[in-house]
């Protein structure tokens, strides 16, 4: 009877939970789905789900390792199941949202219900489950439909319930271990890289173990420790085998990627900076209020946070959570009840510490964890990873307090006529309604807007759906579609007019077909090739065909719905491409999307053979030079530090070598980086100053490189300048200041001597550029100190240092002025007959749009006349003998002044008349840098300044009046009238620029300045110079397509139809060492009995040193002799996935049997015991 009653209560609670789980019904207007940003919800559910079953994603750009995402297959399977059952994509999402909400509540209900013996309040589990899921942390995740986090959020209460039950001897350890492993399998949080999502679970379980062990006192703790070890072992082993399907490939992935992953995040310092940004608002008081999400405070247009930050009622309500939670300690009576409540109080305090991350006052300790606990760095987004434990503990504690107040308050007894039971139940539901009411944004759709007008709640346009359908039959699985236009250079992601924005491409969530788009995922060389290809198309250049061939691009999709004028996301105007593509054949068109056929020389397949390669030596951004030179395949000799650098076989047949020479002097034509002078706390005269000097560790070793010694002196000089500034400011003793100034002078004399002694040798340009930054910064501080100082002696010392700095500045400016016409290059190759050529695109142009070619070349100081010959975009300078040459100089004519429409204007702004020389940049190119040159700044009027105003492809300012330009410039340079040397001011084009106007203005006397024509605007050239030398295989670089069968994106059978060996097999997917090529004899041995999926399991791949990268991205294998069997190309993690699936299925069956047998035995034993009684 009791059981039936309790069953009825549970059913009632589940019905309530199911009802609350219908909240997502409020969120979806007809036909809308939640996608974009971090959501990644598929438009084509079935096809994208199928694609997720593979460890290699072959459609995104050049292919990408999908191993870390394989664990998320069960999570994505939920929406796929709903879809297969007949729901539309929108309905499938709606159902899956409700499903997750229900599961999270049910999981919390299970935990709270498991305490029924000690906390017997009727509605304790129900209120706890509501509090657990209705909060702003989860609301921020609903915006992205973050199913992986929901999965981990489900796992937390259920696993904790099992652990506590095992620790309290309520269930056998083995049974608990098996149940936890099953829970970890079902709620795996997406597996792989989602491991940090279990941070909250980790601290909850560890604190439970420590706490319950501590409670056992004297001898009991030993039992708990043994029990914990047994349980831990069970969980680790059983979870590992149950999750083998994603764990096997992921372990392989993690062991090769962890260190790289940390480096990609900027090392430990970068990770701490990230944690700082996440922890900016996680003060303890905010966490006690269950707030602190950064976007609430940083996003000025946040859809609802303002109400919670300013409305007194809502602020007051937020201060109720913690007192209600901690008051539970006062309400707990029984010892076992107290034990449980105290555990959750402690858990909340521990969770608050971890969730606060690096925020004061405990942040320093968290930072130490990050720096010194191995692997802890994965919890860099501290708040998001640990805060679920805080919500869980608060849910339990608040629910306990509320239930206590409702059930133990005698006030209900006064209403005997109405029925105290009914009143209590009503009070419970009023509490639930108050919780829901406080979280009112749950019942609106505004929270989907993450940066208005951008939102994740979208209606996918019909033309996107039409494209998804059309490409099924019409586009090849191995030929790429180039997506245009190029996106914003910082974000490298599109914003569409229908509000879709995501770093996860739109083309990943429709039917998977290979595409190439402007993306953060592209490597340096891929980006250079892709951007140049787009540039060629836009400007109808002659090399579009070569680039299309090179990148395996067969189609071009122009997405005319890219919002090119969105502030902060400015990009190229698709209309410009539409004009440029007008000559290309149109294959499909619908609304703003047009698909064109790309130009192609030959129809190269994704797998082909080639006999020899071009070798490229140089930086990744210059890799386009190889295509300009007409090479069809090349091998890049990477630095050892590069991820694609492997021990390459020396036997690779090389047809010719192209080297991109490094322009040493070009650094001088970039803006000087001023150094911020630090503030000195410990000054000369302090007893700690010796300690400070000892800590500075000046480098004095003669054996060290000269540049290192100079850099050390620069750092020290900055510290001395800082000392001087503080000493003068605090009016300290003259002697201290003079001694410090003398030390500073000694440093600069040392630097001057080292820099100027080698006048005949080539200067170290990057060092000079660096020194200039220090000179300008220190001079500025010293001039200020000079002005503040009252002592004649001090002023004399300071002025002598300032003079020294000026001398060095003059010397550096002298070098710079030379570099505008003389470009210095370093040569590393020795070749007898090397042809020199330039990339025309890297040259500057004059006002008539003509390239400015070099006039002469100098080899080690010896001048040679040259006659540049341009063909397409390749400018040949002739063939020369390079033996004994280590440096080359290109001599250019004086740069052309490209300031056009020059005029004098008077502009009235803020009640003052300003006189300006105004002009525009002729033939402006946004990919170039510009220099404003001022030969004699000393003659400029007081208060004169130069303003640069950008003209955009979208109107962002009132173009009608020059007043707006003047009062709201994009870049302003103030002129230093005390400078005795010519001044240069640098700026570059940025996204969306189509022109610039330069204003040189002052409040008086501008007419005179204008008459002197004081400024000029010059386009800066950074010429890409290459040398090409032929090697032994010069005549044999022909491409021959391979016959192949594509099993899926991770497996290919390749025919070895070559007559001559050795040969090179090229596979045009991204280079990855995990691609393995096998030579398999199908008819013999074990293989004849194995299914095709297992044919490579017991085979050795072709030796790794013969696998290398070509064309800046693709895989290539050197095949030394004719294969003895069939060539099988396979992505190795897929093999591990299959092996893992076998282990998972087998262990699942075994564990279910063990669990069932255990259950039956327990039942039998308990029946026997009852019988005995």
């Amino acid at each position, binding site marked *: 009877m009791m059981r039936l009653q309790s069953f009825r209560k549970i059913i009632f609670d589940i019905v309530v939970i199911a009802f609350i789980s219908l909240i997502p019904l409020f969120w979806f207007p007809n036909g809308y789905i939640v996608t974009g940003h971090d959501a990644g919800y598929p438009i084509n559910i079935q096809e994208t789900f199928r694609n997720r079953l593979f460890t290699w994603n072959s459609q995104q750009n050049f292919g990408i390792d999908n191993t870390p995402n394989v664990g998320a297959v069960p999570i994505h399977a939920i929406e796929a199941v709903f879809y297969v059952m007949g729901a539309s994509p929108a309905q499938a999402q709606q159902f899956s949202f409700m499903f997750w909400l229900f599961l999270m509540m049910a999981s919390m209900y299970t935990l709270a219900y498991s305490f029924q013996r000690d906390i017997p309040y009727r509605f304790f589990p129900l209120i706890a489950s509501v509090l657990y899921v209705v909060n702003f942390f989860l609301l921020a995740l609903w915006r992205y439909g973050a199913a992986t986090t929901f999965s981990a959020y489900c796992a937390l209460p259920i696993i904790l319930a099992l652990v506590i039950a095992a620790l309290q001897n309520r269930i056998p350890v083995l049974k608990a271990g098996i149940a936890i492993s099953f829970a970890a399998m079902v709620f795996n949080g997406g597996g792989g890289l989602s491991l940090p999502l279990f941070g909250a679970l980790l601290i909850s379980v560890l604190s439970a173990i420590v706490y319950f062990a501590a409670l056992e006192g004297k001898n009991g703790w030993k039992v708990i420790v043994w029990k914990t070890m047994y349980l831990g072992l069970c969980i680790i082993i059983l979870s590992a085998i149950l999750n083998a399907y994603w764990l096997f490939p992921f372990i392989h992935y993690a062991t090769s990627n962890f260190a790289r992953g940390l480096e990609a995040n900027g090392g430990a310092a970068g990770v701490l900076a990230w944690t700082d940004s996440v922890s900016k608002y996680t003060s*303890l*008081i905010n966490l*006690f209020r269950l707030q602190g999400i950064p976007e609430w405070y940083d996003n000025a247009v946040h859809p609802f946070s303002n109400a919670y930050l300013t409305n007194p009622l809502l602020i007051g309500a937020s201060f109720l959570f913690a007192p209600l939670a901690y008051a539970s*300690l*006062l309400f707990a009576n029984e010892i076992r009840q107290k034990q449980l409540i*105290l555990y959750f*109080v*402690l858990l909340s*305090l521990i969770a608050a510490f971890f969730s606060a991350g690096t925020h004061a006052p405990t942040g320093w300790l968290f930072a130490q964890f990050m720096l010194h606990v191995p692997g802890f760095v994965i919890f860099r987004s501290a708040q998001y990873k640990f805060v679920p434990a805080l919500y869980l503990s608060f849910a339990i504690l608040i629910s306990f307090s509320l239930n206590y107040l409702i059930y133990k308050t005698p006030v209900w007894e006064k209403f005997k006529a109405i029925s105290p039971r009914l009143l209590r139940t009503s009070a419970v539901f009023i509490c639930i309604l108050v919780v829901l009411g406080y979280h009112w944004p749950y019942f609106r759709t505004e929270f989907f807007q993450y940066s208005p007008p951008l939102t994740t709640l979208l209606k996918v346009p019909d033309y996107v759906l039409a494209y998804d359908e059309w490409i099924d039959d019409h586009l090849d699985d191995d030929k790429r579609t180039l997506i245009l236009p190029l996106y914003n250079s910082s974000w490298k992601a599109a914003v569409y007019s229908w509000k879709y924005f995501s770093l996860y491409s739109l083309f990943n969530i429709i039917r998977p077909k290979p595409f190439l788009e402007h993306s953060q995922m592209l490597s340096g060389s891929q980006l250079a090739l892709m951007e140049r290809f787009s540039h060629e198309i836009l400007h109808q250049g002659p090399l579009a065909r070569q680039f299309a061939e090179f990148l395996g691009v067969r189609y071009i999709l122009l997405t005319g719905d890219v919002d090119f004028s969105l502030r902060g996301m400015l990009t190229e105007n698709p209309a410009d491409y539409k004009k440029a593509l007008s000559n290309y054949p149109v294959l499909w068109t619908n609304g703003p999307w047009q698909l064109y056929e790309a130009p192609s020389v030959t129809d190269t397949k994704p797998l082909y053979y080639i006999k020899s390669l071009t070798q490229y030596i140089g930086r990744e951004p210059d890799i386009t030079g190889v295509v300009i030179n007409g090479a069809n395949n090349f091998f890049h000799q990477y630095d050892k530090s590069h991820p694609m650098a492997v021990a390459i076989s020396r036997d690779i047949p090389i047809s010719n070598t192209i080297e991109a020479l490094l322009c040493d002097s070009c650094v001088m034509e970039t803006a000087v980086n001023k150094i911020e002078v630090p503030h000195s706390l410990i000054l000369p005269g302090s007893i700690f100053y010796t300690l400070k000097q000892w800590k500075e560790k000046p480098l004095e070793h003669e054996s060290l490189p000269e540049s290192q010694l100079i850099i050390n002196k620069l750092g020290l000089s900055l510290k001395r300048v800082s000392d001087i500034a503080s000493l003068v400011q605090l009016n300290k003793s003259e002697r201290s200041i003079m001694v410090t100034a003398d030390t500073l002078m000694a440093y600069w004399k040392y630097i001057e001597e080292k820099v100027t002694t080698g006048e005949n040798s080539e200067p170290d340009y990057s060092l000079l550029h660096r020194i200039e930054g220090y000179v300008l910064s220190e001079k500025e501080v010293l001039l200020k100190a000079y002005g503040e100082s009252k002592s004649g002696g001090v002023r004399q010392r300071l002025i002598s240092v300032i003079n020294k700095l000026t001398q060095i500045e003059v010397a550096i400016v002298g070098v710079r002025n030379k570099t505008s016409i003389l470009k210095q290059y370093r040569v590393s190759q020795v070749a007898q007959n090397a042809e020199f050529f330039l990339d025309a695109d890297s040259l500057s142009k004059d006002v008539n749009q003509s390239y400015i070619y070099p006039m002469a070349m100098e080899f080690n100081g010896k001048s040679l006349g040259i006659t540049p010959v341009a063909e397409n975009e390749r400018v040949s300078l002739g063939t020369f003998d390079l033996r004994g040459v280590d440096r080359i100089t290109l001599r250019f004519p004086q740069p052309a002044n490209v300031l056009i429409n020059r005029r004098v204007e008077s502009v009235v702004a803020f009640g003052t008349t300003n006189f300006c020389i105004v002009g525009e940049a002729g033939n402006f190119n946004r990919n170039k840098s510009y220099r404003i040159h001022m030969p004699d700044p000393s003659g400029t009027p007081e208060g004169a300044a130069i303003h640069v105003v950008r003209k955009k492809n979208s109107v962002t300012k009132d173009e009608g009046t020059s007043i707006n330009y003047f009062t709201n410039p994009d870049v302003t340079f103030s002129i230093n009238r005390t400078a005795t040397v010519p001044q240069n001011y640098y700026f570059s084009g940025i996204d969306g620029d189509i022109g610039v106007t330069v204003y040189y203005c002052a409040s008086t006397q501008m007419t005179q300045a204008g008459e002197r024509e004081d400024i000029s605007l010059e386009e800066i050239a950074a010429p890409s110079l290459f040398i090409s030398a032929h090697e032994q295989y010069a005549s044999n670089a022909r491409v021959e397509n391979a016959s192949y069968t594509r099993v899926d994106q991770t497996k290919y059978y390749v025919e070895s139809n070559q007559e001559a060996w050795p040969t090179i097999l090229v596979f045009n997917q991204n280079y990855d060492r995990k691609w393995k090529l096998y030579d398999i004899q199908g008819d013999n041995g074990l293989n004849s009995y194995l299914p095709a999926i297992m044919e490579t399991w017991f085979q050795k791949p072709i030796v790794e040193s013969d696998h290398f990268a070509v064309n800046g991205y693709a895989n290539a294998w050197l095949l030394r002799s004719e294969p003895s069997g069939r060539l099988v190309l396979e992505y190795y993690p897929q093999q591990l996935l299959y092996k893992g699936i076998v282990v998972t299925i087998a262990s699942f069956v075994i564990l279910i049997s063990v669990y069932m047998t255990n259950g039956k035995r327990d039942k039998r034993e308990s029946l026997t015991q009852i019988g005995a009684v």
Partner: protein
Amino acid sequence: MMERLRPIQHAFEQKILAYGQAHVFELEIFAVAILAVALIGKIPYLNIVITKQISLLLLIVFGAYLFQIKKQVLLTFSLLLFACALVLSLAGKMDSAESIGTIIYALLWFVAMLYVKDIWRQI
């Protein structure tokens, strides 16, 4: 375990007591120095800043210890401090509210430990 530790604790307390009796004057000087440090908010020359919340926290914890305040009272006091933080938040003084939050956090740890001690006694 606690039983084993008790003689050590007792001996330690005796030693402190004996030291205190023998060096009353020095201890008074030390206490005055700490008070001065708490009032001016920093230790001169060493540039160590003592924040107000740490001073206040020290006062509360020592006060609670000296006057044998019950854990329930201390807990209620902590909960009342939330009202104080609310008032400061409504007044726009978020920095002060954050300081109060830190005090509450430390006090809650203190109270939780007293409860742990209490449970230990009972089991």
